């Protein structure tokens, strides 16, 4: 009786206790399953702070359009509207402002610089957009050189040069994204001389358009829309010198088609990884190609429509993230093209954006620049996000067992994480535990790996029971012979009986 009373009191206390309060991100956290259904997932990244002019104790940013993580975890911001570069140190305090430089004794300034790049040694390259030039500064912000519009026979004389983004590789070659250029990236050598265009995407020829064009007259042909390749809008470079580019000009039907057919074709790909010859080498082995959202409600809803990729950033491990300008989401993919996590959204609260334009990673934290709100949002990983990332990175480094241990923990947070099941399955496969490998690959909907595990399992079963299999076959054979003979005899007997009756 007494025990019961105590129990009752405990129950009352439990009921009276408020639910555990937790910070709620102003966006939905989800991932796509094998069938493309968005499945809720734990938050991988949560907003931690906002950096704007006031936080740095300077004039507010004005239409900032790019940011870049330099050495020593300094953050370089291209504050385009104020024509200056703001450098922020790793404690999120102002390091310095570069609003001009001394060019051969003459004071010079930027005009609407929209892109910048900082080399590992700290040299700064600024795409000084309205001045139609690239400005090269040393780590202290002193002028080294400027690189004007590219000169070549293949560039028309009336070409207006507005560089908006750039990267510099280890050999000091410069790759530039410029407004209105659809031949790909502009490649300059270490002297700043024009080498050529690189990374132009193949044009997809539509059979119907092609036939029309064949029967059209010259005048009609001129009035037709030109078949133009896609135009790039942003660029990043990884440690091995591969260029990551994004484009927002792929036709929505093509993206739909790519999602529907789980296409690996780079022609429908809004994010590409270019090797030194300009060919796309991005692996697209996930359930869906990396295009951002793969399932969306039809038009008319606030969150409807396709993603519009606007920036990309690559981490040292090869994990890359893309920024969806339209819906304010960040999608992170591993090197195989599996979607790891999604976060961010459009809105007015901490962790939302109005017009996100640039994305980079600094010390495991994402920084997203908002053009419209003129501020930077910093996101830090949660335990879940960190586990997923570590699991992927450990796997890439060949530490499979540790990776599997991380995946196991991930599953405790998120039992719907198909990627974690696949990771566990791979670990079991390596340990020759085929049955468990099959079980996990099935949970992860990974058919090719399941097939591999099943093949080995089948070999094992047949190998173990080889004697039994042979014996079974022999018994079957003899049995069928005996049965046949019995049947023949019966028939003969019946015939004989029939004759007697007749």
């Amino acid at each position, binding site marked *: 009786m007494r025990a019961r009373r105590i129990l009752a009191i405990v129950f009352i206390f439990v009921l009276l206790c408020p639910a555990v309060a937790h910070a709620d991100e102003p966006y939905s956290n989800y991932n796509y399953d094998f*069938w493309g259904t968005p499945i809720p997932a734990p938050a991988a990244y949560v907003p931690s702070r906002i950096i704007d002019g006031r936080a740095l104790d300077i004039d507010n940013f004005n239409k900032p359009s790019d940011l870049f993580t330099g050495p020593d975890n300094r953050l370089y911001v291209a504050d385009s509207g104020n024509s200056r570069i703001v450098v922020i140190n790793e404690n999120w305090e102002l390091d310095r402002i570069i609003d001009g430089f001394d060019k051969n004794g003459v004071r010079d300034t930027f005009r609407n610089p929209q892109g910048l790049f900082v080399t590992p040694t700290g040299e700064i390259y600024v795409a000084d957009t309205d001045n139609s030039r690239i400005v090269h500064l040393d780590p202290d912000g002193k002028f080294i050189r400027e690189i004007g519009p590219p000169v070549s026979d293949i560039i028309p004389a009336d070409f207006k040069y507005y560089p908006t983004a750039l990267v510099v590789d280890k050999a000091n070659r410069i790759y530039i994204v410029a407004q209105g250029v659809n031949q790909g990236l502009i490649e300059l050598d270490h002297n700043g001389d024009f080498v050529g265009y690189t990374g132009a995407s193949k044009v997809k020829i539509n059979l119907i358009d092609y036939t029309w064009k064949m029967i059209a007259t010259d005048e009609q042909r001129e009035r037709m829309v030109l078949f133009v390749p896609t135009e790039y809008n942003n660029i990043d470079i990884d440690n091995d010198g591969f260029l990551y580019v994004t484009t927002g000009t792929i036709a929505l039907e093509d993206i739909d088609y790519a999602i529907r057919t789980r296409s690996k074709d780079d022609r429908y790909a809004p994010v590409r990884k270019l090797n030194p010859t300009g060919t796309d080498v991005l692996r697209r082995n996930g359930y869906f190609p990396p295009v951002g959202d793969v399932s969306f409600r039809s038009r008319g809803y606030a969150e409807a429509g396709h993603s519009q990729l606007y920036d990309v950033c690559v981490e040292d491990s090869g994990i890359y993230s893309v920024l969806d300008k339209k819906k304010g989401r960040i999608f992170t993919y591993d090197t195989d093209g599996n979607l790891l996590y999604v976060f961010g959204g459009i809105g007015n609260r901490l962790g939302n954006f109005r017009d996100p334009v640039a994305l980079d990673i600094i010390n495991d934290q994402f920084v997203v620049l908002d053009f419209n709100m003129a501020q930077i949002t910093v996101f830090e990983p949660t335990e879940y996000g960190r586990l997923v990332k570590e699991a992927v990175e450990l796997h890439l480094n060949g530490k499979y067992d540790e990776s599997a241990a991380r995946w196991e923990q991930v599953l405790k947070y998120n039992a719907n994480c198909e990627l974690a099941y696949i990771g566990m399955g791979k670990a079991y496969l390596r340990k020759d535990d085929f049955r468990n490998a099959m079980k996990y690959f*099935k949970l992860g909907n990974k058919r090719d790996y*399941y*097939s591999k595990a099943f093949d080995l399992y*089948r070999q094992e079963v047949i190998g173990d029971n080889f004697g039994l299999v042979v014996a079974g076959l022999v018994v079957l054979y003899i049995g069928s012979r005996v049965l046949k003979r019995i049947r023949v005899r019966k028939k003969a007997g019946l015939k004989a009986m029939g004759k007697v009756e007749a």
Partner: protein
Amino acid sequence: MEVLQSLRYSLYLIFHPFDGFWDLKHEKKGNLKTAMLIVAMVCVTFILRRQLTGFILNEVKLRELNIIVEILSVALPFFLWCVANWCLTTLMDGEGSFKDIVITSAYALIPLILINLPLIAFSNVITLEEAAFYRFFDILAIVWAGVLLFLGTSVVHQYSLTKTFLTCICIVIGMGLIIFIALLFFSLLQQMFSFFYTIYKEVALRL
């Protein structure tokens, strides 16, 4: 007993279609009961196939089985074929009655059952590399049934092969027409219903 015998006869029929279909009609080897049983078996086969095909070759959501949809997806095309077939062949001097058509068409589906059932078991013991065999038999079943359907139509109506071929094309077009008219009918019905409903509402609110 009659049904069992008739089913056994179908095994002979699929290997000897000309004789088989002839006797099916003229020697009364087939009957409607068996035909319905075969159609039901095809439905069951397809449901089993959807649910039990090995994981490697099966990409459907197993949890989302709608048995009515599955049954209709077999039965509806079948009866549509029969109806379109009958509509056309009565106009084109076909000798088969509607019953004959149903029986013939049902018997032509036997290969779908015979091949698909073992194939379900087979799909559970193969890997992706061996999937080509699976696909081969999968297609074989359809082609075989298609050829039987064609020959059955030819025999039951006593058509020449060219005439049968043209008729088959017309039947397929006819099936499309029937679907179109049915959709039109339902859409009109719906509009009529909503029209009268609005009148009713208008009157009811004014009174």
